[in-house]
């Protein structure tokens, strides 16, 4: 009897273990696969030529595989999105968490969550149909598909994660801190920015890092508005991101070109790992606090 129970127990343990291992296995498989398929091309091209080459011409007679334009575009694009998106997201979060009446807070939070639920292809479509022609007319340039268009789309796409994570951090600040500040004669706005925000700073930093992660990994929306020409980035020129470099050429690629695309994916993967590590660092710091 007892033995039977034990077998049952072990069986269930086993099943749970396997289910858990599936997730770990997926991450492990993807990592190993990316390294195995990404390293050969880097070796063939040479890591310096690959990472710092300024020319990408994968199907030319004399192919060039330099991904510096993509790396810089991804960095500039993400930085631009952060510069535009963080102030808006941060002040929205402060307003919603501290100032807004509860009805207002409910409605705006609901809408922010809806923004998070819009598929990226929809952002891309609206960007392509409205934003790109708009930029062309507004700045009087030949074509609106540019780094600038991508930055605007990305900055809107990262808003929901920045707002909701910052809000959670601000909500978690103990009411006592604020009461103490108010009791000492500080007014409400002073209290929020001098007391609440510093107390929630690690959570807000985590929100920003999360936004960086979202922006650097986005492919579909930026592909539709950035023009995809493999040139060194400039604000009103057509540019190609790390993600779109992989996505746009993968379907028709062959030989070393395909291997090089996997290498780009590997570089992107390392970037995202780095961002995740940073995120973990901020989260841990928040716990100690």
């Amino acid at each position, binding site marked *: 009897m007892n033995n039977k129970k*034990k*077998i049952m127990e*072990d*069986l269930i*343990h*086993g*099943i749970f*273990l*396997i289910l858990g291992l599936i997730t770990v296995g997926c991450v492990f498989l993807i990592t190993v696969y990316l390294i195995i398929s990404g390293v050969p091309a880097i070796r063939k091209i040479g890591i310096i030529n690959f990472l710092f080459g300024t020319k990408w*011409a*994968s*199907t*030319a*007679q*004399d192919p060039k595989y330099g991904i510096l334009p993509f790396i810089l575009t991804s960095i500039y694009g993400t930085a631009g999105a952060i510069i535009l998106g963080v102030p808006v997201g941060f002040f929205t979060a402060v307003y919603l968490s501290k100032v807004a009446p509860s009805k207002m807070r409910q409605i705006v939070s609901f809408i922010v969550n809806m923004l998070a639920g819009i598929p990226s292809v929809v952002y891309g479509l609206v960007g*392509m*149909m409205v934003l*790109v*022609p708009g930029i*062309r007319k507004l700045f009087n340039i*030949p*074509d609106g*598909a540019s780094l600038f268009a991508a930055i605007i789309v990305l900055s809107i796409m990262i808003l929901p994660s920045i707002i909701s994570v910052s809000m959670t951090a601000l909500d978690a600040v103990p009411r006592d801190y604020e009461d103490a500040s108010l009791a000492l004669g500080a007014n409400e706005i002073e209290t929020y920015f001098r007391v609440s925000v510093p107390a929630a700073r690690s959570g807000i930093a985590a929100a920003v890092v999360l936004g960086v992660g979202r922006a650097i990994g986005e492919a579909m929306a930026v*592909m*539709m508005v950035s*023009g*995809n*020409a*493999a040139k060194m980035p400039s604000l009103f020129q*057509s540019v*190609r991101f790390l993600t779109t470099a992989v*996505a*746009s*050429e993968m*379907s*028709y*690629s*062959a*030989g070393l*070109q395909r291997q090089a695309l996997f290498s780009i994916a590997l570089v992107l993967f390392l970037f995202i790992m780095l961002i995740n590590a940073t995120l973990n660092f901020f989260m841990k710091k928040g716990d100690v606090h």
Partner: protein
Amino acid sequence: MKKAICSVLFLTLILATLTGCGSSAGAKNAISTDGSTSMEKVIGALGEKYQIDNPGISFSYNPTGSGSGIAAVAEGRCDIGLSSRDLKDEEKKQGLIETPVAYDGISIIVNPSNPVKNLTLEQINKIYTGKIKNWKEVGGKNIRIVLVGREAGSGTRDGFESITKTAGACDYREELTSTGDVITTVSSNPGAVGYASMASVKDSVKEISVGGVDPSEKAVKDGSYVVQRPFMLITKKGVKLSKTAQSFFNYITSKDANKIISDMGAVPAA
């Protein structure tokens, strides 16, 4: 005990995954094709007609792109590969054979508001390599030319660049991943010029004549319209097609298929 149960479960899991990946190539009464997205209309119509004439046969087409289709044949993942470009030397070395089934004209398209009606092949070359930068240099308005093209590896891009001798020299402003995207972009920008498969061009853009010849099926067939490329069937030397696939292959390369191919906007090779 726990370990034993775990390993048994794990083995079952692996077996289940492995048996899931059967190969569909070579199955009886089934024809699988894989490749060029530009050939979708033509091969789809041919497959449909063949299925109606020969009930009980299942025809499948996987629109992955010329490169993927060629790779699929080389790896035995499909019966017939579809390519909208000639095989490269390294692909021929793998024992692959190409058979033309049709020819496709590539239209040069501009925004409907653009007054330019005709360009020579040389002008197109100069436009795409960035030597001509403004429409007024070829008789149009004073607007900067915006070059729209397809991504590296696309059959249409390869066809266009090899015909206009601009391979690797195109100074694209936008590289888009589908014919539809090219048409949408050109239709919304007065300075844009692009290229697309003749069969898929819509009224929202204007087709330009090349060297005084309008893009038409007749002009592609008699060779007077020069911007054209082949639609190839790819098979592997030494690999015998199944009876069904061979009879399909014979049918679409025969004169019987000509009407369907022309209905779909391409020019039959037979």
